[in-house]
């Protein structure tokens, strides 16, 4: 079995409404694609993502998601770049199908670990 990771740029996300982002994420997740967003979702968007996931759960085929937001702590240089260019560094969000991802978690020293499930044929 192959694993597909889709990176979605902050440029693409910047013009999207929260529900459009969530639809995009869930459509990919349901096709067994792991999604990496080049921005951190807001707490409100995360809440909407969990709620939308619960609505999409299908007992036999779709059991949910694993996700993790990695915050970007802005340095002086980032703040200066934001002031000059208007482009804000806001972290990353990783979202994967629960049937493929056991957990995504923060380890000591800032390492984010994604633990995949053992799947037949992998």
């Amino acid at each position, binding site marked *: 079995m192959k694993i597909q990771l889709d990176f979605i740029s902050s440029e693409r996300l910047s013009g999207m409404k929260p529900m459009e982002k969530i639809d995009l994420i869930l459509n990919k997740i349901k096709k067994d694609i792991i999604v990496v967003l080049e921005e951190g979702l807001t707490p409100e968007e995360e809440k909407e993502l969990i*709620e939308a996931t*619960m609505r999409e*759960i299908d007992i036999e085929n779709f059991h*949910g*998601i*694993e996700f993790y937001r990695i915050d970007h702590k802005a340095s002086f240089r980032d703040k200066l770049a934001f002031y000059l260019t208007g482009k804000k560094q806001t972290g990353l969000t990783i979202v994967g199908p629960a049937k493929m991802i056991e957990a995504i*978690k923060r380890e000591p020293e800032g390492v984010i670990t994604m633990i995949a499930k053992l799947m037949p044929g992998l």
Partner: protein
Amino acid sequence: MILSLYKKILQILRRKKNIQLGFYGPVNAGKTTLANRISLDWLGKEIGKVSEIPHETRHIQKIENVVIKTNNGELRMNLIDMPGIATEIDYKKFQAYGLSEEEAKRRAKEATKGVIEAIKWLDSVDAVLVVMDSTQDPFTQVNITIIGNLEARKVPMVIVANKIDLPEANPSRIENAFPQHVVVPVSALTGENIEKLYEAIQKHLT
């Protein structure tokens, strides 16, 4: 006569409405055990059933007019025990606890609705106890999402580092993970440190 009527009206006007205190947290953190402990201590009755099978609480359970009294005064509350927040619900996991396939599927369906209901209530609670299992890693997205939403709405909260009766409990991990919030280590099961929690509720959730 007029004076007593005036005093009565003033009393009614000054009476604060009951605080809607929500119990939020991941599945199996001990939210219902804690709600039962508080309800038993102050009302003499329990709020809901507890089980080791995940998603035992699949509907919101409410108990009204709980009055907590501490040295700093009294606080009137409605306790609202929420279903645990999860991002995944797989009925096969319930079968590992001995449920039949049919029971497990029914529980899974009810659990998804319970999570939605709990999320909806985030906009209606006045204060929250965020209950975490102190034997588990607190850096989970569910914890981060709950706390992030409460912070965004400026809802007062106390984090309860539950299950300190277990030998592997490490409440300091929770304190280190969320240093900006008040964390109270307790055992909802044995009642250890529960007085400290009542003081924290009185001090930080009013």
